[in-house]
């Protein structure tokens, strides 16, 4: 009932095809991220779901109703779709206070004043901003602004929430914190969510499922772990940075390129591959080194420090070697 279905979505601006025959189903209560490089059409798709753009052809069903059906000439304007939308640049109205911003969608539904006050208190409490209710947005930090934006989107109790790179304007610590919070809130409320981002970390942080987009098409769909473990082709593996890409010949395979999982390569004196360390970093309680093997670069995790210039032997767990097409 609360699922979202897109079928045959087609959109072009002038000569450029932005979306080509896109089909997508989002199960009720799941969080799906449209992930892709800039220009892949993901934002346009989100705007079409919201009703801020209209597709040239195709259908959009959501909340048990038909949002768009170009053949039947149906187009429900954004104001009638009752969605939540969280903007990348927050989109907070600078002339209204935090509470007034949050109250706006409720006023649009002609709710009673007392109910509005109660609901605003409730959502601001949920995003821990109750004591900022009477401030203007300009007085808030970036993270706080995005919380207000989320509170505003939640206020109208939408069953469908849209996010446009909600974390990209925030610094690293805050992103993670807010990411978990968004996840918790949307789970608790059983919301169906669609998020758009070009940042795989943000996608991993939030999603039950990721739809990878390329050139106006859905390229691959799956839960984060499946997607990152089994990208369908070289492009997907490269974009996702899913692991090390090596020629199949190194493993006696016919395929030109194989994917080797990050943790499948270990430094081991008995290893069969010889490489040269070119750089080493310390990240998240382990070392991360770039190792040059027969003209190919591998990223390898180690517990001990390697120094640039060291020669090392690598062992690869062949169970995690996957052939890639394209």
């Amino acid at each position: 009932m609360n699922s979202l279905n897109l079928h045959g979505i087609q959109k072009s601006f002038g000569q450029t095809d932005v979306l080509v025959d896109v089909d997508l189903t989002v199960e009720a209560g799941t969080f799906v991220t449209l992930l892709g490089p800039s220009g892949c059409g993901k934002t346009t798709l989100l705007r079409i779901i919201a009703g801020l753009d209209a597709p040239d052809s195709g259908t959009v069903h959501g909340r048990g109703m038909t949002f768009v059906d170009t053949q039947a000439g149906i187009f429900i304007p954004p104001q009638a779709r009752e969605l939540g939308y969280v903007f990348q640049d927050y989109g907070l109205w600078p002339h209204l206070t935090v509470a007034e911003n949050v109250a706006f969608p409720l006023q649009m539904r002609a709710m009673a004043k007392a109910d509005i006050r109660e609901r605003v208190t409730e959502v601001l409490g949920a995003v821990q901003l109750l004591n900022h209710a009477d401030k203007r947005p300009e007085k808030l930090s970036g993270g706080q602004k995005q919380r207000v934006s989320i509170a505003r989107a939640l206020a109208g109790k939408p069953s469908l929430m849209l996010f446009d790179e909600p974390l990209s304007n925030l610094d690293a610590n805050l992103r993670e914190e807010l990411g978990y919070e968004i996840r918790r809130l949307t789970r608790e409320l059983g919301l169906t969510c669609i998020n758009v981002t070009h940042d795989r970390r943000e996608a991993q942080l939030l999603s039950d499922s990721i739809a990878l987009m390329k050139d106006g098409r859905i390229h691959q769909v799956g839960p984060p772990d499946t997607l990152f473990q089994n990208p369908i082709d070289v492009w997907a593996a490269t974009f996702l940075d899913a692991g090390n890409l090596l020629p199949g010949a190194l493993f006696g395979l016919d395929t030109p390129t194989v994917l080797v999982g990050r943790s499948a390569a270990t430094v081991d004196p008995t290893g069969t591959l010889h490489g040269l360390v070119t750089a080493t970093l310390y990240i998240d309680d382990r070392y991360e080194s770039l190792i040059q093997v027969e003209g190919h670069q591998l990223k390898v995790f180690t517990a001990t420090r390697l120094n640039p210039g060291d020669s090392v032997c690598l062992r690869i767990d062949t169970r995690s070697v996957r052939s890639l097409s394209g």
Partner: protein
Amino acid sequence: MYHRLNKSRLAPALWFTSLVTLVIIVGLPMIAIILFAVFPKINELSLTAPFSLLIPNLTDPRLSGAIANSLMLSASVTAVAALTALPLSLLRARMSKRQGQFWDVCFLIPFLIPPYIGSLAWMQLLQRNGFIEQLFGFHAGAMLYSFTGITLVMALNLFPLIYFSASRSLMVIGSRYGDIARVCGANPLSTFFRIDLPLVLPALVSSGLIVFILTIEEFGTPEILGRRFGFEVMVTAVHDKFTNWPVDLAGASVLCCVLILLAFLAYRGQQMIVAVYQTQVDANGFATAEPSTSVLLRLSTVGVFALVAIIAVALPLASVTASAFMDTMSGGLDRDNFSLRNMQTVFAPGSDAINAILTSLSLAIAAALLTALIGFLVAFTLVRLPSRGTAMLDFLSILPNSIPGMAVAVGLILTWNLPFWPVTPYNTLLILLLAYLCLMLPYPIRMLTTALRQLPTSLDHAAYVAGANEITVIRRILAPLLAPVAFAAGFIVFAISTRELVTSLMLSPPGVETVATFVFRQFDQGSMNVGMAMSLLTILLSAVVIGAGQRLAGRTFR
């Protein structure tokens, strides 16, 4: 960016309303003038002798001279105004808020001085036996009655337009980009030429275009100063055809079409320049420049602003004031010649002056409110609902700036005096209001579109998604955010409306006087000094209204 909600029912309705409003207010009189140029007898509802007047008028040797003079004058006035305004704007961006507001108010005053009054004021100051000679023993009549003189007088009247636009733009750009350039090793001079100037250029060019077109359209100053040394421009040529015996309205319409063409070319030129330099300033670039702390800079800033204010504001105002309190013109600046008689004449019981002031004030207020309202609607349509006809709408909105008021007046008569209208505003005060709307609409539309372009679209979209329709978005989101700009535009419209002369003279219904027609009559057949007294009063009254309005606006919008 594409944000047309092509299935929304309100969007086309808004589009249609904007277009119809502009066509009624601006389009109809313009079409009437163009038809008149083609069909010289259309004022008698006859289509005979089409095109018969085009060739004789266009090949008139006086015309090419007048076109050349108009273009030369407009180019020099624009250049001088820009060169005056730019340094002031740069200094303004580094001022404290309070100080900046003071000078802003100060530079609004040239707007309040009607150009013809300003020209007469300068004549009284600089001519032989003028106020300066009476006080200091020298005169500058030769300089005043020359191309240089007329350029300076007009530039001093118009530079505030560029100053306001450029200083606002510099404030939005902030000091961040300049700071980055300085960190990259640029000296202040190259920072200015490589960073600040290109960024402020679109604002400079857009406001420069308005100054250019206003100069082409300006009648009072060339009439008063230019006539003295045989300097004829397009508008004085048009005006001669309109009012000198034998009246040749159709011939004048032909010249108006040339003016429309010139305006169109200037408009296209501006669009091309802006297209090259238009950039999106980062949303986080809003950090405005810190007020400068250097004492030397602050002192020289005050010095420069004071100097410009004395020349552009204090001198003409002093001249008008002196005339207003002189008993006779031939008496000169003499203690014995001081008198309140002119003021008494203005305030005398049964004097038309009070009625004229009331008429002008109510017309100006109505014009300010309506142009702000219509400007808002058109700006929203232009910026947020762009479509194929946008360029036409945009051009319609700037067209009136290029046309002499006389032509607008004739166009309005031709349009609204047709026998088949069931109701017509003609011969009521509404026709004056219509004329003012037509002449003033470009200001709010320009200012509001510029401001609206700077508001991120996510503000609208957030509201749509929250359940608002276009009307609610305009009412609840954009209107409050743009209200300060709308108010500023309204003040400009108010100030210019209170002094509008040419259409008022032509269109006033019988028995109605406005401030400007009252002043004109005093100049023509009564006493110039009574006219000056009335002008002074109107300038002060407009200043009070604008001051009060700004206070009110300031209280309502932070």
